[in-house]
């Protein structure tokens, strides 16, 4: 159950990332999971943040969302 709970939190963050349409700068995957760098531009200033995804389901969810987003852009 613990891993599922971690995934739910990751999913929430990923949904927010997609919903807010924050540009993803890079996705680096290494032995410790995925590190997603994205830019937040608010109130005239921009900031780069890194989001660490630990779970396999989280990593899968992120790429699914990005893939679907790309497909929508193409359509």
């Amino acid at each position: 159950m613990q891993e599922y709970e971690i995934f739910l939190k990751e999913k929430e963050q990923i949904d927010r990332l997609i919903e807010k349409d924050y540009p993803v700068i890079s996705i680096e995957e290494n032995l410790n999971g995925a590190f997603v760098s994205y830019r937040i531009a608010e109130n005239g200033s921009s900031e780069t943040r890194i989001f660490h995804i630990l779970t396999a389901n989280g990593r899968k969810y992120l790429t699914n969302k990005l893939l679907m987003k790309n497909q929508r852009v193409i359509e």
Partner: protein
Amino acid sequence: MADLSIDFAGIKSINPFWLASGPPTNTGYQVQRAFEAGWGGAVWKTLGDPIINVSSRFASLQYKGQRVAGFNNIELISDRPLDVNLKEIYETKKKYPKHAIIASLMVEPKQEKWHEIVKKVEAVGVDGLELNFGCPHGMAERGMGAASGQVPSLVEKQTYWTKEVAETPVIVKLTPNITDITATAYAAAQGGADAISMINTINSLMGIDLDTWNTIPNIDGLGTHGGYCGPAVKPIALNMVGECALDPEIHIPISGIGGIEDWRDAAEFMLMGATGVQVCTAAMHHGFRIVEDMIDGLNNYLDEKGLSSIMELVGKSVPKYKKWGDLDLNYQVTAHINPDKCINCNKCYIACEDAAHQCIERITKKDGTTLLKVQEEDCVGCNLCSIVCPVDGAIDMHESKGENHMTWNERQELLKTF
């Protein structure tokens, strides 16, 4: 009733069931009895330079009451004079002209040796030749069998030498004792082979006697590695057939061998790309008459499937056999325990708790009895619980598909864009 006849690389056979080269095809007496029983063809026990066998020769793996789950042998090729075998092949072919007789051959890797034996066996009317590049024991120590079959250049060269003089189709029998069987299959095709057959036996030691510390089988206290076959090797053979069937560079027919016991096994090999099958261990275990059930079973299966010819089955599963990276990561199966059928043995609970993802909950009800329940959100769909469950239907795997399709390869392509 469907048409079971095959045309295997130009060799016509009344059905796809051939006896593989081995003890059941040692003599004309045996092969003729096999044809009477219904076998469509026989690959004669390997002919070559004279050998002498040892005694004892066979051993079997008996697993939890199942006899001959696996089988091991250290018997070599035919120990009878070539002329005796040729005479019996001639007589058998004359008596059974519609049955396929293939001569299995093994000689030293020398051009003149191959030319000599090919001409001799073709002169007595065989329908094809099978080059034995597979036997892992005994002959390999003399540079033949698997010793040749593990070196692609030797496979290609010897196939080429055979094809220089052969007038009948040449089948190259491959050893599984190699990392990538497509390398030798490709070499055979490059050498001009008309077909390949697989698998020969796998290097093995059947066991150790815990009282005497002798290896099994033993010859006066000493043993040697043998060739493993029988039902236990079927998954290995099926994969190797699949790998060759998938390879676009290997465009020659495949004869499937390895643990085939009944019509179902045969159908699986043919679905995976084999145009025909060869059987040895099952005939040694149960006798030649098993072919009757194989023929009936396959006929009924084809009728049920609405197929008029066995050839319509060949290769139908090949497009479904992919690289791991081409599988959909979003497809999900989840275990469901059926309380009406569950006997609460806890096998699934223990397996999941100790060796999987701890997603089965054991709930104690008010009356003191227990109920096993899958926490679906944690279930990864590994199948372990349903595999260990002793009751059919007590655990079902329910499938669901994701919103979209995404393979590992597609995912990696996406990641490259960031």
